[in-house]
């Protein structure tokens, strides 16, 4: 984290804690922002933009899971349903109460956090594996509630959702959505980085590394675990609101059980407890998924006997194989790889 070129010293505490430390960091930030906000959206076609939009929404949701799993060490097998809850809160308030999309955002954030808090309650007495069980139960219970919600949740038909408006300006094309989602992603990463670097992040890491030791040191373990659940769900809620308005409707069928495993896969592949790792993980697995969707039909046309199921089955196999391979060969994830590359670049041409 703290590697810098020779001869760069901090002379004040402010300098010591800042994220962007050297002129090179600032240049990289500006270059990245220009690519992210100007070059890419202007050059890309609708297809590439739609892929990126989905990727960015997934990154926002995964950042939340990273707090719970990567920083606080609580395994969640039901993250997808919190994304759905966020989307449904937006949908319910827009359809039944006539709220604008912007007005539902804080409601979705708070509402999802409360739901997450409730299903985090078993963590009072439990940890590790048992938390995985309680979140698994929460997934199926919430799906059932949504399915049988009648007119409120639209039952199996789901809810239609309007596009967001800024004044009288509608956000409806892929490019307009890109700017909206990219802005939210930038904000989400900034907030996540701030939380992770601050007091809360340190407390989460202490709980993850040893909850008993953390308790002895005076940390209210249960309270902070609940906060981790709330933060995680709040991120999922925002991602759900964006997801709902981006697709134009919301239905529980958009959140199958496999999605929970995908979310865990993003965090594991990227590297647990790392913001930049989360971004890598989502990019890696999502783009692998899109790659399978392109290659799959080719294999299907070569082997017609399995053509019908080749994409869906290869997605499952690739997802599982990538998770297993990373756990066995690179448990610290892509983030660790990235750190190795970065540090070897900084001391180049020396080997150590």
């Amino acid at each position, binding site marked *: 984290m703290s590697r810098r070129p020779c001869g760069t010293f901090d002379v004040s505490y402010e300098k010591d804690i800042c994220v962007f430390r050297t002129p090179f960091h600032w240049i990289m930030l500006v270059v990245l922002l220009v690519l992210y906000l100007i070059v890419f959206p202007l050059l890309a076609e609708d297809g590439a933009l739609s892929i990126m939009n989905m990727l960015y929404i997934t990154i926002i949701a995964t950042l939340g899971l990273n707090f719970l799993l990567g920083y606080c060490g609580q395994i969640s097998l039901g993250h997808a349903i919190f994304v759905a809850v966020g989307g449904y809160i937006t949908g319910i308030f827009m359809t039944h109460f006539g709220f604008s999309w912007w007005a539902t955002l804080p409601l979705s954030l708070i509402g999802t956090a409360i739901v997450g808090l409730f299903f985090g309650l078993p963590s009072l007495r439990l940890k590790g594996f048992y938390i995985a069980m309680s979140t698994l139960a929460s997934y199926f219970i919430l799906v059932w509630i949504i399915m049988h919600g009648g007119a409120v949740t639209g039952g199996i038909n789901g809810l239609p959702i309007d596009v967001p408006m800024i004044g009288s300006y509608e956000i409806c094309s892929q490019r307009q959505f890109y700017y909206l989602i990219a802005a939210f992603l930038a904000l989400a990463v900034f907030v996540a980085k701030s939380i992770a670097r601050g007091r809360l992040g340190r407390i989460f890491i202490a709980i993850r590394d040893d909850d008993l030791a953390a308790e002895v040191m005076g940390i209210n373990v249960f309270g902070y675990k609940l906060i981790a659940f709330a933060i995680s769900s709040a991120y999922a809620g925002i991602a759900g609101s964006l997801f709902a308005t981006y697709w134009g409707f919301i239905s529980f069928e958009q959140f199958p059980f496999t999605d929970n*495993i995908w979310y865990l896969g993003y965090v594991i592949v990227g590297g647990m407890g790392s913001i930049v790792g989360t971004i890598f993980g989502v990019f890696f697995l999502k783009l692998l998924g899109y790659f399978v969707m392109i290659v799959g039909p080719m294999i299907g046309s070569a082997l017609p006997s399995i053509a019908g199921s080749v994409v869906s089955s290869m997605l499952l196999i690739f997802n599982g194989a990538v998770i297993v391979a990373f756990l066995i060969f690179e448990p610290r994830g892509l983030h660790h790889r990235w750190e190795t590359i970065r540090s070897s670049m900084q001391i180049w041409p020396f080997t150590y």
Partner: protein
Amino acid sequence: MTLFLQFLFSGIMLGGIYGLIAVGIVLIVKGTKVFNFAHGDLAALGAYLFWGLLVQAQLNIGLSVVVMLIFAAILAVFLERFILRPMIGQPLLSTIMVTIGVGQIFAGIITLLWPGPGRTFPHIMPSGTFHVGPIALSLEALISFAICIVALICFYFLFQHTNIGLAMRGTAEDHQLAQSGGIQVTRIFAVCWFIGIMLASMGGILIGNLHQVDRPAVAHFVLKSFAVVIFGGLESIVGALIAGIFVGMLEILGAGYLDPLVGGGLGEIIPFVVLLTILLIKPYGLFGYKRIERV
């Protein structure tokens, strides 16, 4: 009253299969300290494979069972050697995730080999109904229940009264002590996986025979039996059977009486409500060990 008894006995029949699957999970947890999240897909794989052997390869039942046993043994050794052994000493999350990943791979293989809707078994059991007083029970469910009970008794005998069972119990107590005592722990792991896969496949086949061989349905059934495992206590084999029957009864009774009030589908989530309740009020289940931690 007749309705109540009818529901009760249907629930017990269902609970037998829950117990069978839960015992497989419990055995793997006890022996290898790994909670197998791939159990659902293993059960589905077993059921599909058995269906394939019976229908596609046209083997008779005895030969199919032999092939299934060989398959389970190979799979168990492979899983132990190449997937789970690198996970020894890794954090809990890694072992959980690796089984989830393996489950995904199996799910993908099933989707690849047997795409489309579920399959129906040919008549491998006599069908009909069996009357006890006013209660009517399906003969297939009754035979399934009997198979579960017989399998569990055989397993209990193996576990309590044979040398390999003694080695398994020793391994369950403490891996290092067992290793020092001359038990080859990695081989016991493979045996635990073998029996676990066999019990899962049996469960999958019985569910497939009662309803349909359908991966999502079988996998969901096994997810529900996780509730049974927690309820019975993570380490208790007897607890798994008792809890299985209890959860089965609760599911059928709850679904039978409450479904008309709330619009159906309650049977799918009652086990999960039980799971959440147990976790909140008695997290270590009926017979589980209460863990005491020292820093």
